[in-house]
């Protein structure tokens, strides 16, 4: 069952609509936009750009899982100017060329969001890595001990205020 772009946008739009729009404190970096945005693959490298609330990443993962998507990677971006942490989930599909990006923003001093490792066991490692590098706390994750960093590491090197 290869999903069509329209079906997916509709389902993900439902999800994003059900949640309150991301509350941004400080200057908004981009003008407000629709949470589900089709993207030009040739220019961006993905087809659908979905912004959801932090609490909805696991439901989004569930929807994509039902449609046969696989998790590509999880990563963070530290938007220190906005005092926010962006978390980006990339998904790909093995039977169709569809690429989907799910993104959410969490406050920088309180970076917590649910884990999706129950849906995608492969997310376990990606979340541990994101925890290592950004200090993102994935609630419900089985083990967030340092992964790629030394086992006694307490720092998060990809935060923009980190200096060695």
């Amino acid at each position, binding site marked *: 069952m290869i999903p069509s772009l329209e079906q997916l946008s509709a389902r993900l739009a439902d999800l994003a609509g059900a949640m309150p729009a991301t509350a941004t404190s400080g200057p908004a970096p981009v003008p407000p936009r629709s949470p589900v945005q089709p993207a030009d*693959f*040739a*220019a*961006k*490298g*993905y087809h659908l750009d979905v912004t959801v609330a932090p609490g909805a990443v696991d439901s989004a993962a569930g929807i994509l899982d039902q449609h*046969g*998507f*696989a*998790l*590509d*990677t999880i*990563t963070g*971006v*530290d938007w220190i100017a906005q005092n926010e942490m962006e978390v*980006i989930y*990339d998904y*790909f599909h*093995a*039977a*169709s*060329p569809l*690429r989907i*990006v799910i993104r959410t923003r969490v406050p920088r001093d309180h970076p917590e969001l649910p884990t999706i490792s129950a849906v*995608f*066991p*492969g997310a*376990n*490692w990606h979340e541990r890595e994101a925890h290592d*590098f950004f200090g993102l706390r994935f609630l419900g994750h089985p083990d967030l001990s*340092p*992964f*790629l*960093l*030394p086992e006694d590491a307490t720092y998060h*090197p*990809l935060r923009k205020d980190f200096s060695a």
Partner: protein
Amino acid sequence: MTAPPDIARPTKPQETFVLNVGPQHPAAHGVLRIKMTMDGEFVTRAEPILGYIHRMHEKMGENRTWAQFLPNTGRIDYLSALHYNHAFVGVVERALRIEVPPRAEFIRVITSELNRISSHLVWWSAFLIDLGGMTPLLYAFDDREKLLDLLEGVTGSRLTYCYFRFGGLCNDIDDSFIAGARAFVAQMRPRLKLYRDLVTDNIILRKRLEGIGPISAEMCRKYGATGPVLRGSGVAYDVRRAEPYSVYPELAFEIPTYPAGDSMARYLVHMAEMEQSLRIIAQALDKLPAGPVMGKVPRVLRLPPGDYCFAVEAARGRFMVRVVSDNKDIPYRVKLRTPSFSNLSLYEEASRGMILPDVLALLGSLDLVIPDIDR
């Protein structure tokens, strides 16, 4: 061979012991450490422990210009440096909409495929070493040496290539390279036959790999495994076809798949891919157009704000670069999605209840490069 049910039962902690395979162990190529909880010779849990060769390439990316990060890409997966080059120049070209001349694209494909063969040859020989066969290593390295000579002639280095540039290549290939590549294709085919006679058809190898470490297509999906691992589970997923880049759409090749999902299937995928790569090289050499190898590129690279992805089919699977730009000449964020990382993440689940030699055969069949996992 997996454990019979009475052995696979949950054992009491005092009946098991912990065996550290790595970070210095002959089967851990590089510095991978696997903490194995063993019940006799059966592995009840195999937990990979990473980070021994972590270099924080992603932080380096935030500290240097787009062009300065390019040499780093060749050092993430040292066996398929050109594919990683390709992904990074690809993402910048995509963001800036740089036109790459066709000749450059063809040369990129030719050199990338040569690189893929050399990577597979290293995998093949190292895998055979894991299985206790020494001689194939030397035969494979003999062939690989010819490849490295070819690539050294055009790129200047033998392993950590940095040959692609934003908008093209740093220099053109010459006739001796073309002749050498043609000669290589011609002489590699009989060598693959030799490999088949010596190793692939060998009953010892078949007994060793058939049915060992089955990985289902569903497990691959859940863990995001790609490349030969996914194709060995019967899924015809190849970034070269799924998200076509460069001139791959113009070239005819097949995506070899084997549905069994065991180590033998992954092995056969690798061997078939070498043949397909030879086919691609032969076609690309025939179609190679004349012209420049460098397109028009702005003098100072500044990517428009936003995020961009570019995925390539590296020798081990899907490699994706995701960059975030804030309109400066250095990236705001570089994320490297490496295939070995995802491929290894299913190891703990896939290896449960197998005996030690099989666990190591499974590890070898996943085709891992440790710096690629740790970055």
